[in-house]
């Protein structure tokens, strides 16, 4: 290699002082002095080394921000996809199970001695026990999520304590019911009074707390999602920025070498530059895609699943209000109103100026909801399914929603017939209809429940897919940043080594 330094750009650097190999000790102290005085910067190899050090430092910074951003990405998918997210969904079962326990009790007290009515006495008790077990399991999940949150812990404890009390009250009502040996729909006052105590405890204390547990833990997941997502996006900005710094420093180094040594290209440094571009772009792209997956998992999956599980629980509870309406004539007006309120929270058709009563509600469903095709932009109703409809595109989700809406209308038509009979004074006929002896009321409700479950499954699949994509994207990214940075570092060193060798 010929030594051909470029004519120095002003100010001219002094030529490197020849070392004095004879006196090693003096040489060392001289080096140190040179370093402290900064005179090494005035030599060509010193400047090359300075460039290299800057490049490597920026590379280490790039590696660091990439590692932190990917760590945040991993945390976010862990929280939403694997830990808290599924647990929050599991606590939703608590509300459903509790609400359905009370529904089963109402049915048992309503059918009285006729043990074959509805789904039957034995089956009803079995469902009750099953829901009891589900409530316990969900409470365990809730207690785990509560962790160090004392208010939440206390709420969970209050639900469990209240459940014990509820079961005692239900036990008393059931005992009185057996003793009274009554005909369906003719539950004696003392049984109804005993049931009122139980159902009031459930409605006023247990269910609200159970509902709030899912809301509160869900809000923690939402907040952690917001924090992690913005951390991932901030991380992406930093990756792009530090990547740019490495890039500019590499270019500066090459420009310096070009000027100093009159060589146009340094292949190793060019490779290092390209590798930096690739690592930065792929890293930033990964983080962008990850933020997208997590958003999809949270909005299209987590949030929708929670909304629909609420719609399901409230629908079951409304269906039970039909039994309570027949069971407790003294409170029939109240139960009719709570039935309407619950129905409105599921679907609230635009009623215009008409009074909000059941009659207009049924009519509104037939007019507005029947005419609606999922995927349409304008959604003529509010409520859980209104929210769902507003985010639905055509395809599998739209089909599932259409089936759910149709099944819901059938359930409401049965309700209208049942109330017609009851308000005309035909209680026995209303009970027979509600319990499926003269209608498909129970089967229709089960069909609605199945359709709603299928709709939830669509979101569950979207959630699983998004989490799988997020996991898949991150797989291998333990090693990639460090390996990439090491390769770039080696290329930089390989690129400058021959130039430095010219000065030995």
């Amino acid at each position: 290699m010929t030594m051909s330094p470029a004519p120095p750009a002003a100010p001219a650097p002094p030529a490197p002082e020849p070392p004095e190999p004879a006196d090693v000790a003096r040489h060392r102290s001289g080096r140190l002095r040179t370093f402290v005085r900064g005179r090494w910067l005035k030599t060509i190899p010193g400047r090359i080394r300075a460039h290299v050090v800057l490049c490597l430092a920026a590379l280490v910074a790039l590696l660091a921000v990439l590692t932190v951003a990917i760590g945040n990405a991993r945390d976010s998918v862990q929280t939403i996809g694997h830990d808290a997210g599924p647990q929050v969904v599991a606590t939703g079962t608590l509300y459903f199970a509790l609400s359905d326990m009370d529904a089963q009790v109402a049915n048992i007290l309503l059918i009285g001695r006729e043990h074959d009515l509805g789904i039957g006495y034995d089956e009803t008790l079995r469902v009750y026990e099953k829901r009891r077990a589900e409530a316990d399991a969900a409470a365990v999940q809730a207690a785990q999520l509560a962790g160090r949150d004392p208010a939440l812990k206390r709420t969970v404890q209050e639900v469990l304590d209240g459940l014990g009390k509820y079961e005692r009250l239900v036990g008393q009502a059931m005992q009185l019911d057996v003793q009274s040996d009554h005909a369906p729909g003719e539950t004696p006052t003392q049984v109804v009074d005993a049931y009122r105590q139980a159902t009031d405890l459930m409605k006023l204390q247990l269910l609200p707390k159970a509902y709030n547990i899912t809301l509160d833990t869900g809000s923690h997941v939402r907040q952690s999602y917001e924090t992690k997502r913005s951390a991932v996006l901030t991380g992406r900005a930093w990756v792009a920025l530090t990547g740019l710094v490495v890039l500019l420093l590499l270019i500066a180094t090459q420009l310096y070498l070009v000027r100093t040594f009159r060589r146009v290209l340094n292949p190793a440094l060019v490779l290092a530059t390209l590798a930096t571009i690739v690592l930065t772009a792929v890293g930033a792209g990964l983080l962008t895609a990850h933020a997208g997956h997590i958003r999809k998992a949270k909005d299209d999956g987590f949030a929708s699943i929670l909304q629909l599980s609420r719609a399901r629980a409230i629908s079951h509870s409304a269906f039970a209000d039909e039994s309570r309406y027949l069971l407790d004539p003294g409170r029939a007006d109240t139960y009719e109103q709570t039935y309407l309120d619950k129905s409105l929270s599921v679907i609230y058709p635009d009623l215009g100026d008409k009074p909000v009563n059941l009659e207009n509600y049924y009519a509104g469903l037939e007019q507005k909801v029947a005419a609606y095709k999922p995927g349409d932009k304008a959604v003529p109703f509010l409520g859980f399914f209104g929210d769902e409809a507003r985010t639905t595109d055509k395809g599998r989700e739209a089909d599932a929603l259409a089936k759910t809406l149709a099944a819901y209308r059938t359930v409401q038509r049965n309700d209208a017939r049942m109330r017609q009979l009851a308000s005309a004074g035909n209680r026995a006929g209303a009970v027979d209809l509600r319990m499926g002896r003269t209608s498909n009321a129970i089967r229709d409700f089960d069909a609605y429940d199945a359709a709603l479950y299928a709709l939830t499954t669509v979101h569950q699949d979207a959630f699983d897919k998004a989490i799988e994509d997020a996991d898949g994207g991150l797989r291998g990214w333990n090693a990639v940043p460090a390996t990439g940075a090491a390769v770039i570092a080696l290329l930089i060193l390989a690129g400058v080594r021959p130039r430095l060798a010219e000065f030995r």
Partner: protein
Amino acid sequence: MRAIRATAAALTAALLPALLSGCGLGATEKKSVADKDSLVIGVKEDQPALGVKRPDGTYEGFDVDVATYVAGKLGVPKGNLTFKTTNSSVREEALAKGTVDMIVATYSITAKRKMKVTFAGPYYVAHQDTFVRADATAVKDVRDLKGKRICEVTGSNSWRRVIEERKVDAKPVTVNTYGACMDALAAGRLDAVSTDDLILAGFATGRPGRMINAPFTDEKYGVGLKKGDLRGCEEVNRAITDMYQDGTAQRLLAKWFGKSGLKLTTSVPQFEGCT
């Protein structure tokens, strides 16, 4: 050397905006009531025991106390609170424009309002109930209002709930305010006043008469926040949970409605969920 200097200059130029945007990215969530040092709270000025403006311009009532407690939990001391009369017709607009940060004013959560307002709570679920003269023992529930004269307050929907929604054949008599309804009831020009039990209880305190304790609707009194303030909503919900867990809610309910003869619910209500 020049190359390094040029690079440094280029870097500074590239770095600054990126750094700034980097900081901006860290705060993607919108401004929230949870971050404020002072709050303007919308309340009613003419509802006894709920929100009343005193002659000296200060406010008192259950809603005012609830708002003060919640604001305290959000870290805003009493001294930094401004209460402002916010009538029913301007509530959504006041929140959207930001003239008030929070509304605690017998503000019922409904599906329609939820499109424009983010509701925390409810902090209490009131029920429509009926107040009659003490000697009207025959009136036990809303159906017994058939043929009776009930109060129709201008701008209130409560009478519709009896006549149109429950289809009870009562006769509406138009009166301007619930206070005037109570006077008319005492004077025998009316037979019953039917509306939210907390509102009735406020007017009923100190008057002869009887609450029939036959509730037939759920009115979820929510804390109205600017649409989209989910974090603020979640914080307010936690504050309401605390209010019930530490006994403040029970104390406030007893303080304002304890003497009315109304059956009070002292367990935390089912929250609506922040949307």
